[in-house]
């Protein structure tokens, strides 16, 4: 089967069961480290995906198991090099402008997920899908690593 340039590199279909969150995190951690993200960045990307899925399962589907969630992942090359993850559901639609994290000064349980996602990812958009459900797009750029040459600074060339 041939793929087209716009096809995702990876597609994952899961159902809205919190039991699957650990497996998805493991897959994201492994994939992001394979393409060059460091351990901290990989952990942050896995956290953002986990928080997005948690929001869908908890708020979109009301903790009801068995509903569809689709992840599409592109390993982006060129100037925008990095990873783009699109997560789509068939849950109830809400206005994207109404999706916002709580004021962090107001200390109370809950309401942190959206703040965490926006904090750790470079780009994050929420959209209503045309027919049903919501679409969340997450982007994290892969930045060149700084090379520390201090240890070898006195090494003759």
């Amino acid at each position, binding site marked *: 089967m041939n793929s087209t340039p716009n096809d995702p590199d990876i597609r994952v279909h899961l159902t809205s069961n*919190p039991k699957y969150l650990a497996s998805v995190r493991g897959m994201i951690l492994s994939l992001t480290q394979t393409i060059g993200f460091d351990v901290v960045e990989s952990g942050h990307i896995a956290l953002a995906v*986990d928080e997005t899925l*948690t929001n869908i*399962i908890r708020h979109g589907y009301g903790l009801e198991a068995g509903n569809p969630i689709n992840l599409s992942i592109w390993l982006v090359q060129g100037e925008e090099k990095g990873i783009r993850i699109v997560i789509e559901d068939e849950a109830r639609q809400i206005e994207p402008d109404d999706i916002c994290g709580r004021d962090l000064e107001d200390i109370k*349980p809950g309401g*942190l997920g959206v703040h965490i996602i926006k904090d*750790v990812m470079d780009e994050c958009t929420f959209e209503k899908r045309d027919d049903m459900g919501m679409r969340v797009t997450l982007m994290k750029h892969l930045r060149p690593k700084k090379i520390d040459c201090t240890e070898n600074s006195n090494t003759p060339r």
Partner: protein
Amino acid sequence: MSSQQNIEVETEKVPAGTVIRPKGDIDLSRAPAFRVEVAKCLEDNTGAVYIDLGLVPYMDSSGVATLVEALQLTNRSGVKLALFGLQERVRSIFEIARLDTVFKITETFEQAQED
């Protein structure tokens, strides 16, 4: 298939109060069970509450919410609550949520007992 998973939580009475020691990831699948275990400990407890997170490799906002709830309950009853032994990945979520200054967070149990 049940969507919730149990969590292993060890509790230990110490002279100053109770140490709560959860084991494993705390995400949406385990946070409800963790919440129940923490609530039980708070009911039975009279002294300070120390939560050892050394055996928790991962926590998301569901786990953090449980701890914020516990902090509010202990604050209301004038009981001290401290977290210690956090792994780097877990500590990071408290920093992102700017809760690292709201909770008393230390590296060791000995530091957690200091005022």
